[in-house]
């Protein structure tokens, strides 16, 4: 078949930043860097890992929270790391797994969404954003097989349906819509238990915040890779809410109050396990 100019132009017209990089600057993609002579599955390289992320729906939106600890083996690599990021005006992204690659993927995803918005003059649908993220995670599969996996959690407000929605992923880029709540990372089993008991339909945003803090506290209690609220350094989880008005980072004073009330309640209870 003859390749017409129109066909060529159409093939080259992309609204995707990732596709543009893949064509013009493939070395800039986080999952295209070769790790030669590096990792094997038997002895994974020692790099910082980000751990627990929790997310849940509440009446009118979704909330996502992450603890502040990054670990490297049995060492705490960072007490200040942030694992929840705004992806664009109406969505947020939380990351667990290999921190370096996850942060790069997040940056790429943020540019991807903004790039589409600027080229097309309109926002991508929430499903579209979720699918794009899945494709990026799939791109990272070769590195994931070497032990450098990234597992994101994606939440956003669907402006057409008028509801908050939540998506989880596996390392192959498989995308699963979650209802109610979900959690990823090494502390997720403990956080999940807490969420199952504390979450109920139509929570208010304030109630959802305290449920998130409490479930992260439970994760930190039993998982050494998850950091609890740090009253000495005044470090609280990073929490974002997304509703009809857009994504909002919950300010420090609210987080401090929520964390302190959890600590206080547990101090009063004084239970061992």
């Amino acid at each position, binding site marked *: 078949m003859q390749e017409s100019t129109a066909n060529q132009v159409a093939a080259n017209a992309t609204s995707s*930043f990732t596709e*543009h*990089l893949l064509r*013009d*600057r493939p070395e*800039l993609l986080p999952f295209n860097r070769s790790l030669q002579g590096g990792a094997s599955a038997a002895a994974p390289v020692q790099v910082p890992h980000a751990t627990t992320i929790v997310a849940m729906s509440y009446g009118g939106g979704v909330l996502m929270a992450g603890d502040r600890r990054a670990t490297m083996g049995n060492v705490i690599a960072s007490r200040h790391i942030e694992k929840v990021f705004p992806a664009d005006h109406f969505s947020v992204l939380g990351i667990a797994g290999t921190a370096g690659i996850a942060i790069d993927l997040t*940056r*790429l995803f943020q*540019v991807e969404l*903004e*790039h589409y918005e*600027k*080229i097309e*003059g309109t926002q991508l649908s929430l499903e579209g954003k979720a699918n794009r993220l899945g494709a990026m995670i799939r791109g990272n599969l070769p590195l994931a097989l070497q032990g450098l996996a990234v597992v994101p959690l994606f939440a956003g407000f669907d402006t057409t349906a008028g509801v908050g929605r939540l998506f989880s992923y596996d390392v192959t880029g498989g995308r699963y819509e979650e209802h109610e709540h979900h959690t990823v990372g090494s502390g997720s089993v403990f956080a999940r238990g807490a969420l199952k008991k504390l979450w109920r339909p139509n929570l208010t945003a304030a109630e959802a915040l305290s449920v998130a803090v409490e479930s992260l506290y439970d994760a930190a209690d039993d998982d050494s890779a998850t950091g609890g609220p740090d009253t000495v350094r005044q470090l609280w989880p990073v929490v974002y809410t997304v509703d009809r008005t857009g994504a909002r980072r919950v300010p420090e004073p609210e987080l401090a109050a929520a964390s302190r009330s959890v600590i206080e309640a547990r101090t009063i209870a004084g239970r061992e396990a």
Partner: protein
Amino acid sequence: MTQQFYVSPEQLMKDRADFARKGIARGRSVVVISCADGIALVAENPSPSLHKIGEIYDKIAFAAVGKYNEFESLRQAGVRYADVRGYSYDREDVTARGLASVYAQSLGAVFTAEQKPFEVELAVAEVGPSQAEDHLYRLTFDGSIADEHSFVVMGGQAEKVSSAIGAGWEATLGFADAVRLALKGLTPAQEGDQPVAPLPPSALEVAMLDRLSESARGTRRAFRRLNDADISALLA
């Protein structure tokens, strides 16, 4: 075999420039005005979806007149350039100066090497923390570049519009006044005794680069497109 006629380089360039100028002069005008609140971009454009004004990056906007397909491809190239640069270095390393010189090079290359020059004129605007740090670049079809202060007018009636705006421009203008001034320039001159109705919001495309987007709206992205209702509210 037919003999090629000799055309002197001067004549060739002159013909190309005349051709491009004619194309641009057919279009309606676009005005970019630096004011106290930021930079206002105003165009006469009846289409609600085919834009002459666009966002390039956090503090950088684009405005153009001429052939839509040509300036649209330049706008998209600009967005790609800026996004790649911001992603591989840092967001603050994307500047209007860098973008404008890339545009100047591509326009210059097309003007001399291609079959037909681009029939476009562009403006690249970057809003700074203070008015003295605003940058307005104007680029023409042959790749020449000019660094303007205060305002840029491009398109069909550029000279007429430019003199009207030059008479009213002051550094202390707010957004509403800047848009009003642009409208005054863009409204066709009165003929005889018939007063001319000002352009309705539906015939206008208005966007702004907000100087205080971080503190006022909590976003790095200073570009904001105004819809018809916003324009009416601004001018009310």
